[in-house]
């Protein structure tokens, strides 16, 4: 009995397979329920449009329009514009809403709240407010746009307000865009891609070589910049050329209020985004300036940087290298400081892609005697070997939790420091 019943069911199973295959392979004749609902919705909308049209015409003076009915779409007609398109002129409200009105202003805020605890002697664990940042983007006309960024940073007794970027840009076309103002120096990848606002970046902190307030790389640049695409087919080349004030009196700051000498700094970068390798970007950049530490003591500064990034999150790879070369013009002594980082991350496919673990290794090596870094009482750049492992969890599309463990050694013959860091970062 059992055998016979099983045989019947095996037959039914085989028939089911055949039926499923034939259904899947045959042309879909029957529309789905969702498609029918969509069609009903479209038809209802169309009826209401026609009723509205009739009402409008009834109210207007009677006159022969001479309009013709729309011709059904034919495959051969798709590429050829015809006069029948005037049948479907958009309602003016929709068109007005779609058009950009000048000046248009978009404001977006970023914030983060952090907790840190390390085994470094003399430090306290605890919460701290991260930067509160406002970004502004405003189209002033079809060709002219303004971008601004201000930050509020918690200090022991107050909040420090800083204008981080303020750029007015004229677009001639994709190949030439000219702008003036204060930028994040287009040197390497991270500095020009991730601005203030921790939500934008995967990790809690920036790599030390480009950290805000750091001196190794001039993070800000005040001046003029030309940028655009280089016609190069599938290679996807782009460029950026800048001329500006360079470092200010404090090497970590740009000369917002004026240059400290009469020599301009310059920066040039070129990158490739190959069409065949979507997500990959390879770039190189150079920066030159003249630094005056004390009257009569001048250095030339030459920074060469290279970056390779793959930003599709499955995986995400960021790798940058920079060599900062200082040449003392009086004594012809040369100093090279080398730095790099490699960051790997992967957006996990589970739980709606909310989890993203990451790891970063970073390294800085400076000469024992480096007059620029030792210009102030405490060295502004020190040796570093560090590893960071962490995970980011996107609570929503606009807020994330991050947790990090860092093991770093700053300076030579110094002990390693372990730290745990947590952050919630968001945009609004």
């Amino acid at each position, binding site marked *: 009995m*059992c055998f016979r*019943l*099983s045989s019947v*069911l*095996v037959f*039914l*199973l085989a028939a*089911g*397979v055949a*039926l*499923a*295959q034939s*259904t*899947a392979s045959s042309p879909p004749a*029957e529309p789905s329920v969702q498609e029918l609902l969509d069609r009903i919705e*479209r038809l209802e*909308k169309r009826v209401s449009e026609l009723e509205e049209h009739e009402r409008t015409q009834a109210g207007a003076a009677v006159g022969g329009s001479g309009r013709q009915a*729309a011709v059904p*779409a034919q*495959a051969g*007609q*798709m*590429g050829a514009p*015809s006069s029948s*398109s005037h049948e*479907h*002129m*958009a*309602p003016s409200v*929709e*068109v007005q809403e*779609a058009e*950009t009105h000048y000046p248009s202003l978009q404001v*977006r805020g970023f914030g983060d709240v952090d907790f840190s605890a390390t085994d470094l002697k003399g430090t306290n664990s605890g919460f701290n407010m991260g930067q509160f940042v406002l970004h502004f*983007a*405003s*189209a002033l006309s*079809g060709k002219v*746009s303004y*971008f601004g*960024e201000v930050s509020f940073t918690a200090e022991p007794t107050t909040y420090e307000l800083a204008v981080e*970027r303020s750029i007015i840009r004229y677009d*001639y*076309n*994709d190949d030439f865009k000219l*702008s003036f103002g204060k930028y994040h120096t287009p040197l390497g990848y991270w500095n020009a*891609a*991730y601005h203030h606002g921790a939500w*934008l970046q995967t990790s809690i902190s920036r790599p030390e070589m480009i950290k805000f307030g750091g001196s190794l790389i001039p993070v800000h640049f005040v001046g003029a910049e030309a940028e655009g695409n280089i016609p190069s087919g*599938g290679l996807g080349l782009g460029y950026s050329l800048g001329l500006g004030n360079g470092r200010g009196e404090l090497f970590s700051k740009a000369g917002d209020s004026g240059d400290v000498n009469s020599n301009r700094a310059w920066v040039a970068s070129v990158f490739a*985004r190959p*069409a*065949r390798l*979507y997500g990959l970007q390879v770039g190189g950049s150079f920066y030159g300036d003249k630094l005056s530490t004390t009257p009569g003591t001048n250095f030339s500064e030459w920074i060469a940087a290279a970056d390779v990034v793959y930003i*599709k*999150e499955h995986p995400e790879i960021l790798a940058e290298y920079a060599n900062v070369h200082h040449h003392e013009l009086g004594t012809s002594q040369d100093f090279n400081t080398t730095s790099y980082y490699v960051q790997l991350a992967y957006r996990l496919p589970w739980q709606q*892609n909310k989890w993203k673990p990451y790891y970063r290794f970073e390294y800085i090596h400076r000469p024992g005697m480096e007059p620029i870094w030792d210009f102030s009482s405490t060295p502004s750049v020190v040796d570093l070997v560090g590893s960071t492992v962490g995970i980011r969890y996107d609570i929503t*599309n*606009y807020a994330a939790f991050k947790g990090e463990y860092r093991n770093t050694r700053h300076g030579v013959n110094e002990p390693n420091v372990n730290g745990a860091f947590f952050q919630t970062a968001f*945009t609004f």
Partner: protein
Amino acid sequence: MTAHCKFVFAVLGLACLSLALCGTVAAQGHDVDVAVVVHPDTPVSDLSLADVRKVLLGDRQYWKSNLPVVLLMRAPVARERNVVLKIIYQMSEAQFKQYWIAKIFRAESASAPKVVYSNDMANDLVTAVPGAIAFIDAREVRPGAKVLRVDGHLPGEPGYPLR
């Protein structure tokens, strides 16, 4: 009927039901091409998929120096949007949103794609707004619309990539 027979019966019955359902779902989820439609005055008629991607990523913002690209995207959950996200952007909805926030505030683009709520609206706007580019179910493209070839293919032709 023994417990063993009941078990076999239940398993095979479930298998039949599953296969029948799979067949139905496969039949309903058939691919319909998504046409790339541009304003009639746009000076292109054939783009590679990589070029379409460049336009959608905001890396190409001008058709010519006096004609900026105006991106029109269907609102979330529309099939046309899902096809564009999957094949062109290769991003999830969340990644797409993050991408444009970062793009705008990196000062690389003044505005994100404009959202359209139906293929009717997309048809209306792509006809009316100079420089507009929209992604519309090929069955609902209006007569006379300028439909781009992608990688040399029109919707409905073999090898058309947006489906």
